[in-house]
């Protein structure tokens, strides 16, 4: 009997921990077509910070900000997934605002590769991204 109680308690604790973790980390999806080696770093840009001819789009992303603690935290999660899928940078193209309360609820954009010609420039000058 005590073992069953122990198992039950373990499941409850695991469930609480999992739901806390779920609340702490935003829901993000990164969709990349093709096979690109994972990168060590991925930079963040707003659409107006980088010219669309300066990167090659390889996929899209979407982040649900309702589960995120902050905008930057959501983008960090996107960056992590994007660089694992081989992207050099993410570019935020659309911010979805809830008309009822004016709150930012989602972010959409593209994940991209940076050509050699501007990679060094980006690394030196635009690296700040959204920070």
């Amino acid at each position, binding site marked *: 009997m005590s073992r069953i109680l122990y198992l039950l308690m373990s499941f409850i604790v695991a469930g609480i921990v999992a739901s806390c973790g779920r609340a702490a980390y935003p829901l993000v999806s990164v969709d990349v077509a093709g096979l690109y*080696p*994972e990168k*060590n770093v991925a930079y963040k840009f707003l659409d107006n910070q980088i010219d669309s001819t300066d990167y090659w789009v390889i996929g899209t992303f979407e982040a649900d900000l309702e589960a995120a603690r902050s905008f930057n935290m959501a983008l960090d999660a996107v960056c992590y997934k994007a660089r694992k899928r081989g992207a050099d940078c993410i570019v935020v193209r659309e911010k979805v605002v809830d008309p009822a309360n004016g709150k930012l609820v989602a972010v959409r954009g593209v994940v991209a590769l940076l050509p050699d010609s501007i*990679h060094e420039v980006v690394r030196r000058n635009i690296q700040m991204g959204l920070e």
Partner: protein
Amino acid sequence: MKNIHLIIFPFVFLLLSCAEYRVSTRFVRSFDSVDSDSVIVLQQEAVMPSSVDTIGTVTVKSTLLKSAEARTILSAAVAATAEAGGNVLKLTKVDYRDHPEVSYHVMAVAARSSGEWQPEQSAICMPYASLLPYEERNLSVSELAEYLRKRPLRNTVSLTVGFDGLCSDVTYPGNMYGFRGGLNWRAEYYHCLDLFAFGFVYDGAYSSFANDYYQQFAYFGPQMMLHGHIAQRWRLRFGAGLGYCMLQDNEGLNHGIGAELCGGIEYLVSRRVGLGVNVHNITGSISGEKGYFLFDNDGRWLLHRFAVTAGLNIHF
């Protein structure tokens, strides 16, 4: 006889499962091998030009029990193509699995262009070298493998236990000691950068003396380290730290400040698990009046401890 199969089958299965991936190739033509970095990788959406001749197919699959990252899978496909003399790799099917770990299965066509074809570089048509992370572009495939192997995992937890030597004079009723051996246990966590690491260390020691006297010592503090590989599976590290130390014996508890110097060598059993031997020296300045130590006029006792410990290092 049936029993032999029962033994061989799991053995072969385990052997195959130990590899990260399996490469199968089928070439109908082959040429002198070419440089891997120059192989053009065409993604699935790219159109293969008519001037490029197909020479065979390449399939790379993550094994059942281990997952291989995209870089590993792609470099294997490119290496197989380059070895057969192909300079174009056209991906035909990419299966991506996100859970429980990222892994890929790739099918591709290996081809050879006559040299007239000058592809315009884009996201779906790039030389293999340009697909690699910017910091690693100029590395060959073998150098890249070396780079990845040597790239440390960023966090390490080390748990060791061993011999402790108290090298300071201490007097207990009826006996005076200049050296006393004991037991030492140690837990470390550090975050690694390429050459430096920083973290925290907890060090505990216990020495027993005649007539049931004992001395228990603990040190806790931040630590800075230099670390690096000296061979494929061997790593060295040297560190220093400053922290709080605590000494308890039959008479009571005393506190102080300690400084630590440490060095260690580690044998990596796998990328994540290592067996290490550490040598460290802690010098502590213990203040107080309780205890049988030879306190100086300022009420301080200078303590030297030397320890050799061995144990497990876990990298993640």
